[in-house]
């Protein structure tokens, strides 16, 4: 399969990227690693007049601690997060998710920010960002703005980014010293889309649950946040009953559809079980217990 013809632009600054997108008036696509875009081109699902390659823009590949949180540049690949010491412990959710994205070869090319911009409802990073209360830094013609995770995703393969905006980085706030997370994903085989998955992030304060985030993958038109489950769990002592109750509420927040990966009922049950396991793992990690990651 051959992609359709397009103009290839490889600017060397974010300003030039934004200008190139603006000149094409919505008919250009950005490319970082290309692991979602190139398959779409080959299948002729999209035929942009131009592709703007981010790869030659310097300074976008940083994965670093920033104000106690994380900053993930536009060209940070899944592999980088998978292997980063930073993506463990308090930020273990990121390492846990990175290991489960697509397959090892795709992870060597694909980027976290590119995956977010692609906004596949079965994509992993949207749920991670929701659970971690992250935000993206978007560059556009009138400067930089910050988009919280809750406002980024607008539907299947749709974000609130303007056609001439580019995600320069993801920022994740400081979760506090006693924090942990986990990503649990069910897939039929490595590299298949998620049947269902759950991202969980928990911070403990004085033995009680302070911050909690629960993001759901593959069970709605976009990644969903299980708000009622979070509200119920926050302030609890993170005991078994509180975890079970939160897991039930997360399952209720899911909007799964029956397909060849399973029935809606089955997927809802997976969400419940994975939320329960995820909360146990996240709480154990926040307490610094053995065996957590």
């Amino acid at each position, binding site marked *: *399969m*051959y*992609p*359709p*013809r*397009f*103009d*290839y632009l*490889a600017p060397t600054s974010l300003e030039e990227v934004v200008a190139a997108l603006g000149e094409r008036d919505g008919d250009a696509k950005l490319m970082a690693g*290309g*692991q979602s875009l*190139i*398959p779409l*081109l*080959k*299948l002729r699902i999209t035929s942009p007049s131009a*592709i703007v*390659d981010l*790869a030659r823009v310097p300074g976008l590949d940083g994965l670093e601690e920033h104000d106690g949180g994380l900053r993930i540049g536009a060209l940070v690949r899944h*592999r980088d997060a998978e292997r980063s010491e930073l993506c463990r412990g308090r930020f273990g959710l990121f390492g846990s998710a990175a290991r489960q994205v*697509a*397959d*090892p*070869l*795709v992870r*060597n*090319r694909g980027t976290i920010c590119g995956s977010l911009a692609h906004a596949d409802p079965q994509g992993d990073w949207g749920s991670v960002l929701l659970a971690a209360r992250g935000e993206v830094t978007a560059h556009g013609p009138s400067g930089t703005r910050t988009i919280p995770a809750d406002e980024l995703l607008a539907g299947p393969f749709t974000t609130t980014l303007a056609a001439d905006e580019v995600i320069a980085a993801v920022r994740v706030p400081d979760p506090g010293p006693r924090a942990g997370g986990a990503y649990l994903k069910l897939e039929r085989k*490595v*590299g298949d889309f998620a049947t269902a998955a759950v991202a969980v992030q928990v911070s403990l304060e004085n033995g009680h649950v302070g911050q909690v985030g629960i993001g759901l993958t593959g069970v709605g038109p976009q990644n969903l946040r299980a708000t009622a489950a979070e509200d119920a769990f926050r302030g609890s002592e993170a005991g078994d009953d509180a975890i079970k109750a939160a897991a039930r509420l997360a399952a209720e927040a899911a909007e799964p559809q029956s397909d060849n990966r399973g029935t809606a009922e089955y997927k809802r049950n997976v969400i419940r079980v994975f939320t329960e396991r995820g909360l146990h793992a996240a709480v154990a990690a926040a307490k610094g217990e053995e065996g957590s990651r």
Partner: protein
Amino acid sequence: MTELAAPATGAALHRVAVTVNGRPREADVEARLLLVHFIRQTLGLTGTHVGCDTTSCGACTVLVDGLPVKSCTMLAVQAGGAELTTVEGLAEGGALHPVQQAFHEEHGLQCGFCTPGMMLTSVALLADNPSPSDEEIRWALSGQICRCTGYQNIVKAVQHAAQAMREA
């Protein structure tokens, strides 16, 4: 040569300069040319196979700056400036690479179609982790499909190569 190796009249061309198996190579290509077609058709290195063509099977795996990637899911223009290794770059001076020797000795292939990709990923794995567990080998190869072997002998072959390379 296909129509893509000889670009259509009027199509914009981009100069792609890469190092392939240690040799500098360059060509003017259309932006839409996939890396796998650049390797097979423009450079004439047909050891890299096209399998599923949908990022699933990994038969087209090559090393880009030492990391295995699916060359059907990368544009040739994205590889500009990179060092590529294809299966043709493994043997040196007529002597098989230890990974090739191990696939031969452990019968790590039947039809051989997936083998170039399997071997290149194995080379990258062993460069990073000289003593992998069976599970780590399966994990590293999990983006690639073999329809013949059931993977048993592939894992054995990688272990065999790991041992040979440690003892070398």
